[in-house]
């Protein structure tokens, strides 16, 4: 997306500003006549943005990097992580920048004590309950906000009962350990793993599987409160669910909770090394849609495939063939190196 000054994109605005929130398809707006500008003050600097711009885009236009976790350009904002909150003068609570629209005369503070406190605690809550080791994004924010998740005590050991949790029931502990979502990895198919001990419940995979991209609805949020979790119906394994292995959920997951088996195996062997990886853009050979693929390559082997989110054809989405159907490339390599040229 382009975020050059004052030139914020509107591709993602809802058709009707009154039809908002939850989980709808990404509405696409035909180019409209130039819109009215509104003036907002961001950290003391007055800027002017087109009406309908979110505060996130407004702060970005002002050159401020507002953190986000559950927001993605290609998905409908769910505004659940609350890491993006900013202070708006006159508002009782902080407001989520990713989904609140800029209004004329708004005075916004993006780095006040209140904002920093909320962001710091949100990160501490997450890091004390979720394994964030494979989320560079969360870890960068943790450095920025100087968080100390250990203030809440050592995290609980993994439990395999999360899929059986009942709404409105929990066992009160003595508080010496911080409740965590740690649990065994779900390895039920050959293509990707679900390690929900790393899940921050950002809803992105649900949106990508559902109305924002794939319309397959294999996974949804189940349970309530701390036991809320991403699940298939009755937590059945993926091969029994509606999953079509497009991997679009993997493409949007910010934490590595959803991961290619190929990546997981390398990480386990200790040989995963992003500094040694290159990426190559190409076009998927399978069908006429012509999706752009980004091949991530380490040691001359494809280790995973995705598609640029800003790509006009895919918006980051692929189907099972483009996402996972590349093994043949390596099979040929093998046979070639075995001297058995085809």
């Amino acid at each position, binding site marked *: 997306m382009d975020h050059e000054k004052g030139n914020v994109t509107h591709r993602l605005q809802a058709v009707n500003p*009154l*039809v*908002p*929130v*939850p989980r*709808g*398809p990404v509405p696409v707006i035909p180019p409209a006549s130039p819109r009215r500008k509104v003036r907002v003050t961001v950290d003391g600097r007055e800027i002017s943005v087109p009406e309908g711009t979110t505060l996130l885009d407004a702060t970005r236009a002002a050159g401020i990097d507002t953190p986000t976790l559950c927001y993605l350009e290609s998905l409908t904002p769910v505004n*659940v*992580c*609350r*890491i993006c*909150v900013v202070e708006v003068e006159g508002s009782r*609570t*902080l407001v*989520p920048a990713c989904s609140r629209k800029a209004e004329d005369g708004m005075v916004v503070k993006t780095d006040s004590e209140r904002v920093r*406190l*909320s962001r710091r*605690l*949100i990160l501490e*809550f*997450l890091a*004390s*309950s979720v394994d964030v080791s494979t989320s560079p994004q969360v870890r960068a924010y943790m450095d920025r906000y100087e968080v100390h998740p250990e*203030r*809440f*005590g050592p995290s609980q050991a993994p439990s395999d009962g999360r899929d059986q949790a*009942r*709404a*409105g*029931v*929990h066992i*009160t502990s*003595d*508080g*010496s350990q*911080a*409740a965590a979502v740690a649990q065994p990895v779900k390895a039920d198919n050959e293509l990707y793993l679900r390690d929900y001990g790393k899940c*921050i*419940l950002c809803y992105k995979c649900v949106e990508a599987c*559902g109305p924002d991209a794939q*319309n*397959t*609805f*294999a996974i*949804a*949020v*189940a*349970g*309530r*409160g*701390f036991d*809320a979790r991403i*699940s*298939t*119906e*009755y937590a*059945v394994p993926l091969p*029994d*669910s*509606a999953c079509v292995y497009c991997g679009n959920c993997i493409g949007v997951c910010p934490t590595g909770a959803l991961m290619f088996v190929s990546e997981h195996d390398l990480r386990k062997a200790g040989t995963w090394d992003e500094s040694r990886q290159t990426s190559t853009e190409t076009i998927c050979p399978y069908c006429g849609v012509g999706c752009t693929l980004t091949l991530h390559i380490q040691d001359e082997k494809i280790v995973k495939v995705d598609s640029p989110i800003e790509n006009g054809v895919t918006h980051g989405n692929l189907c099972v063939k483009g996402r996972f159907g590349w093994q043949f490339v390596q099979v040929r390599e093998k046979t070639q190196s075995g001297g058995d040229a085809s």
Partner: protein
Amino acid sequence: MVLRVLCGESSSSLLQARVSIFQGKETFVDAHFTKDHPTAAEQQAVDSVLGVPHSGWKGGPRRPDRDGHSAVNGHRLGADRHLLLPVLHAIQARMGWITPAALNYACQRLNVPPAEAFGVASFYGLFSVTPRPPCVLHVCDDIACMTRGVEDLCRSVESQLGPAGSPSLNGKATWLRSPCLGLCERAPAALMSRAGEKPAEKVVAPASPQSLLSKLESFANATIEEPPDRFEASASAPQASQNGHSRLVLLRRVGRMDPASLDDYRAYGGYEALRRALNFGGSWVVREVLNSRLVGRGGAAFPTGKKWDPANQPRYLVCNADESEPGTFKDRVVMEADPYSLIEAITIAGTALGCERGYIYLRGEYPLAGERLSHAIRVARERGYLGTNILGRGVDFDIEMRRGAGAYICGEETALFNSIEGLRGEPRSKPPFPTQVGLFGKPTVVNNVETLVNVLLIVQEGGESYAAMGTLGSTGPKLFCLSGHVARPGVYEVPFGTTLRELIEMGGGVAGSGQLKAVLLGGAAGSFVSPAELDTPLTFEGTRAVGASLGSGVVMLFDDSVDLRKILFRIAAFFRDESCGQCVPCRLGTVRQEELLQRLNHRKPMGSVEAELGLLKEVGQVMRDASICGLGQTASSAIESALRRWQLF
């Protein structure tokens, strides 16, 4: 089943269907169903709500002549999703839990993806998505019941039935701890539910350790025909059975009339207000409500006149009867004892605002109120007070009732919309507000039961004279839910401005040890006040001045034998259980808040007690500042108010 139709084989299970996913938008969906086939009972349960399937595309037998080779699709196909919650209720009541085959069949009928339906079913406390005995005893262990010996009760139940959730009575029954059941005036309270061919629900309040088990046994075995639950004014609204009853306005019929009889209701002045409203017209009603300066009684204290702006062209009127705030039971009393008044009030509000339809979202744990209301709706419809051509005036308006299923959060207005729509009861982000984008994406007015019942008075007396009652900022009469250590608990009606001390005296004074330690105002989301603050006038502005709030009208007394810390632990556990889990500050803040209090409880603070209390404040602030909805924003309020007033740790 459907798939076989499509593919001619049973193994494949993809059905291309076109369904409407989101308001007004249509999307292609690969609806995938599982291979589970419903039994006759499961099918009956679902069909009891949806009717018999008329096509092979909807789970019925396929008839090629009729069903052809392509499905009827388009907008209609997903348009029944709002029936998901009633269908889940039917499955739970028939099967005792939400079975995979029944859910799958329901998904086929409603065209809902099974993963989403499972997400909805697993959201509610009253539904079980794992096998469970048909009979369930819900024992309230919440704060009002804690003042009336609930610990002994739970211990006795546990010793006889085993740990909560385990099957007992030969696998026929189980028991569960429950948050406040809204029966606090008769604490300790319990609710029994029985699934099967003749599902039933029964309240036991007050429950005694001696008799509860035998009641459960006969209920589980359905050996005797149980007398239906009844409303007792002397137990629930003591004022209504005392002298001075004539001064009551909101409660004037309570305990006097037969709640089932429309004629009785009319003999006590019922439906005069509707006639008057139709005579003077909708804009007059709206103006009078504005002049009355009526303020919403649901907890948020929003001026009703402002909400009732006809310029918004509201499509739906929703009556919020989810009443789940611990300590609140006023709406239940009104609905059980005077159901027609609510139906009349909704009709007046709905027709005055030009709404197409009214919804009542009733708390799932209120079986008697549900029975009374559905009876009242039916009779009102038969007698021409509801439905088409109301009172022969050519006005159409009807009311639909929906039952919640054990989720406090569904009282939050936007979560309530999602719940009715068949989605998870997760609050939406505001703005836009319900008056702009509400139920089914249309402008909607939401009001509390008590708020609406006040409209009857306003229509009959006029807004100005209504506003003469009470104080400048808080007009009219107010219902308070008096519970805990008070001599005569129950719902009390007083004009705004009555002090806390006066109200407690009306309730017969402090019970228990007789020495008052604390009063909780406004429920778990409210605040504690100390005996030094008894002269606080019970008004919106008066309570605000002492840093408290009226909330939903809870006034819960604790004597000096109560360990307030235990009350705080229960409140912390309540919010952890009831958070919808959507946003990080509340989902995890409520957990960390409880853990922190438990560390203090077990005298194992990390660092010093002061450091822990400092951390607790930070947790409270991020919940207040960054949560999406009122639940997270108030989850620390009562706890912080107590720590401000007493040194508890």
